């Protein structure tokens, strides 16, 4: 083999190599260009695409523009106006900062950049050619702002071109990029055309309704009518956005958008926190939908992790994780079957009236009145079946304090609409499985077993949470062989493990001995659980695997301890169940994520019978 001499790469080749990292397909070009527009303070961005972006990508903005003197540098590598010093890099406010994008794109396409700052009389155009990427500056006609035109992407790198998919696929990727940017900046207008056809056109959205309309257009109108509004701030972290109800889930994770300081991010920590928040309410194998914006101090997050900036690193990973988890978890838990949830009603269901009787305050007051006695009495009631008459009397006595629910035991009166609770009053039981209830809006159908299962489960969880940790020392300790890394984690997190009731000793570089386990685990495979907990510790510095396992056990117990199908219930029993649902967290889904109730409004019923047409 001949000895090859070391040589400095030509600028174009160096840029082409860099392009390999950043410019993967037309969509990545659009991402870089749109981010530049946003960094330039544009309020309107027009994107024209031809042939899925392989023929032409033109991005025009009305931003600050680039001065004539700066233009040649704009296409040079490692040249940027966004960052000057390391201090600025550590507290980034712009989306881009590497100073590579334009150079990289220019090296694999025919790129022209036209720009006119407002304070300059004429516009100038620049393009780079040849192996040294020599720039060529010419005067041009352009309004205030910048246009970047990328033609024949990958014309000089056939290998890359071969990897491109069909025009349609490439455009779908590209559209996804535009969608994300449109979601990240409501204050900017976007338009996207493909082969001359308008695909998206969004005006700047300032009000909540406009923003929700944009999301409905970009994702799906169903998402907006099934989403909860999140707005919360704590410890320097601010989260806003929309999360889909557990019943509105998808089979793939394609409707998940998370923005950290306006930047689209797909991060393991975030994914884990969200997954954990949805545990227990999401049907097996389904993916939640969300559009969430996290804002935190720029110094608290490092975006210089990956060239495409899809990943970020949080300075205080655990804080972010716990914040996300607790806020989302609470939002999902607090969702109750009353029409007053801050769902984006105005778009999908403008007909929903602001029912007076179920205003949160009034309802909460009723809850406080008899929450305690009711909960404990119901808990013991189903265990020893009383004769029916006694049972009715019992329930009447239980619900006595509340005037609203006392009516429940009367044979369905012509109730004043203001007194009807969210889930209404039971009318009948269908085939021993479903409860039919008349609510203000129409008909509510409740899956009796699923609903009762959730109520029992939540009650058990609460009871167990209130107990102190109980532990069972082992007569024959369990030995566990694992990797040194895991054993190290067990040592450094031993106090956390102890908090759960575990007692773990390190007996060698790669072995642990479990001397004590939490009592509820005494019949489960403790070693497998410890291993998954340690894996969580290594990855996220926190773990809910133990709690999840406990909840699984409770869930099975709850399933067995709940009324089964074909058990006939009396009207007062059904009403009691409905009231229980109204005050139980997460009562919209059973333990396995199946919905517990659904509603047929009068409108929908009328439609079925062609009434009022």
């Amino acid at each position, binding site marked *: 083999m001949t000895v090859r001499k070391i040589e400095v790469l030509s600028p174009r080749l160096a840029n082409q190599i860099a392009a390999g990292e950043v410019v993967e397909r037309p969509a990545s070009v659009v991402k870089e260009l749109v981010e530049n527009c946003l960094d330039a303070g544009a309020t309107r961005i027009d994107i024209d695409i031809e042939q899925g972006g392989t023929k032409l990508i033109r991005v025009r903005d009305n931003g600050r523009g680039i001065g004539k003197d700066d233009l040649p540098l704009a296409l040079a590598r490692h040249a940027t106006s966004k960052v000057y010093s390391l201090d600025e890099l550590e507290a980034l406010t712009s989306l881009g900062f590497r100073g590579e994008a334009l150079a990289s794109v220019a090296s694999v396409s025919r790129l022209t950049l036209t720009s006119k700052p407002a304070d300059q009389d004429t516009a100038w155009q620049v393009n780079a050619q040849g192996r040294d990427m020599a720039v060529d500056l010419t005067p041009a006609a352009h309004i205030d702002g910048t246009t970047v035109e990328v033609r024949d992407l990958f014309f000089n790198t056939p290998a890359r071109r071969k990897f491109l998919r069909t025009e349609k696929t490439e455009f779908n990727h590209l559209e996804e990029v535009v969608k994300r940017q449109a979601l990240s900046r409501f204050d900017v207008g976007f338009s996207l055309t493909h082969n001359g056809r308008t695909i998206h056109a969004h005006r700047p959205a300032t009000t909540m309704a406009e923003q929700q309309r944009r999301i409905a257009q970009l994702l799906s109108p169903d998402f907006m009518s099934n989403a909860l509004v999140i707005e919360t701030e704590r410890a320097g972290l601010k989260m806003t956005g929309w999360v889909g109800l557990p019943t509105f889930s998808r089979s793939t994770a394609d409707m998940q958008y998370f923005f950290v300081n306006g930047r689209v991010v797909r991060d393991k920590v975030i994914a884990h926190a969200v997954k954990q928040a949805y545990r227990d309410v999401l049907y097996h194998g389904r993916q939640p939908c969300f559009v969430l914006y996290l804002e935190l101090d720029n110094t608290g997050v490092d975006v210089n992790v990956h060239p495409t900036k899809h990943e970020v690193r949080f300075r205080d990973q655990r804080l972010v994780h716990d914040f996300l988890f607790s806020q989302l978890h609470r939002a999902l838990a607090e969702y109750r079957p009353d029409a007053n949830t801050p769902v984006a009603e105005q778009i999908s269901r403008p007909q929903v009236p602001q029912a007076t009787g179920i205003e949160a305050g009034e309802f909460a007051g009723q809850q406080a009145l008899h929450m305690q006695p009711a909960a404990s009495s119901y*808990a013991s009631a189903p265990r020893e079946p009383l004769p029916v008459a006694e049972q009715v009397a019992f329930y009447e006595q239980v619900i006595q304090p509340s005037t609203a629910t006392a009516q429940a035991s009367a044979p369905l009166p012509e109730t004043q609409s203001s007194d009807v609770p969210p889930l209404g009053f039971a009318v009948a039981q269908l085939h021993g499985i479903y409860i039919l209830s008349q609510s203000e809006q129409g008909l509510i159908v409740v899956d009796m077993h699923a609903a009762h299962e959730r109520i029992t489960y939540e009650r*058990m969880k609460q*009871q167990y949470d*209130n107990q102190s940790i109980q532990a069972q020392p082992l*007569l024959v300790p369990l030995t566990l062989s694992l990797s040194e890394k895991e054993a190290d984690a067990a040592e450094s997190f031993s106090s956390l493990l102890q908090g759960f009731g575990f007692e773990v000793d390190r007996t060698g570089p790669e072995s642990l001995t479990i001397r004590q386990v939490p*009592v509820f685990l*005494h019949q489960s495979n403790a*070693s497998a659980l410890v291993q998954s907990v340690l894996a969580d510790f290594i990855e996220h510095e926190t773990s809910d695997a133990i709690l999840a396992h406990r909840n699984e056990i409770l869930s099975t117990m709850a399933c067995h301890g709940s009324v089964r199908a074909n058990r006939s219930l009396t009207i007062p029993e059904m009403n009691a169940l409905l009231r229980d649902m109204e005050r139980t967290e997460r009562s919209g889904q059973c333990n396995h994520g199946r919905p517990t109730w659904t509603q047929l409004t009068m409108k929908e019923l009328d439609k079925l019978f062609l009434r009022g047409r």
Partner: protein
Amino acid sequence: MIHFSLAREQLIKPLQLVSGVVEKRQTLPVLSNVLLEVEATELLLTGTDLEVELVGRVTLSEPAEAGAITVPAKKFLDIVRSLPDDSIITVKQDSERVIVSSGRSKFTLTSLPAVEFPSIEKSSDHEEYSIPQAQFGHLINATSFAMAQQDVRYYLNGMSLELSPGMVRTVATDGHRLAMSSRQVEGLNTAEKKQVIVPRKGILELNRLLTGGEETIQIYLGSTHLRATTSDFSFTTKLVDGKFPDYERVIPRGGDKEVVGDRQTLKSIFSRAAILSNEKYRGVRLILSSGNLIVKANNPEQEEAEVTVEVDYEGPELEVGFNVNYLLDVLNVISGEQVKFILSDANSSALITDFDDDATAFVVMPMRL
């Protein structure tokens, strides 16, 4: 072609025991069958699940045709069970079918050839011991409850059987509690100590064969199998290949607090308090003071049970938690009137024995409540 007849009461008991070994759900069809073999005047019934094999022997009073065939165990047993007590049952092979008839009832069963029926390989080198059935039964009964069930530590899913000169010892543990029992057996001729682990199912099936009479049971111990024979049965089980935990280290020494109480009384107060213990993990608190034992239980609904009983105890006050099921299991197998608890502190295991019989001991770990 096999052909024999015999009285129902002669057939039903061995058939019941043999079918007990046969697993309900099978992937290998022949394993759900029972093998019938006739040689001269003897009928052999065999059932197996490849881990445990049981052969029952019945002597036929009427002349029979020799042969071998397998029939579905469950159906055959149900048929025999449903026939009147005093009926005579005739079994006859008709090409690939087997006809079972009695009086005016007739059943035609499918069959599989006897050659397909697997037999556990009998190892040739083995040692032979002879133990009185009553004693062996006692050893198993005293400890079998503590065997683990489907534990990942497979060696706990069985019972340790230890043979030493003049002595047999059984030990079982599931990692939370341990039971150990020893019995002197005269004339047990073994040169050295031998310890094997008999799987859970083997122990449970073996226990059903023991009559508790004066008869002896012959134990043949091979390297991978244990065979036990009585006059009516021959039972073979595979042994668990593993090392049983060192139980001597687990037995607490130096407990200084000795509590003696009436077994029946303790049993009833434990079960009384247990009503309000947690359904899932059954924790109860034992509070000892001079002459007195208080048993307390709480459940997640915050209901509380408190039962006090007089016991024979002198010493400082002590509070310790236990899984009440473990205590009840122990009290159920002890046969004496008085039981003795030896404790040292709230974190150390308790040693429980029959007051009059030190040869059987139980160790229960406390629970941190």
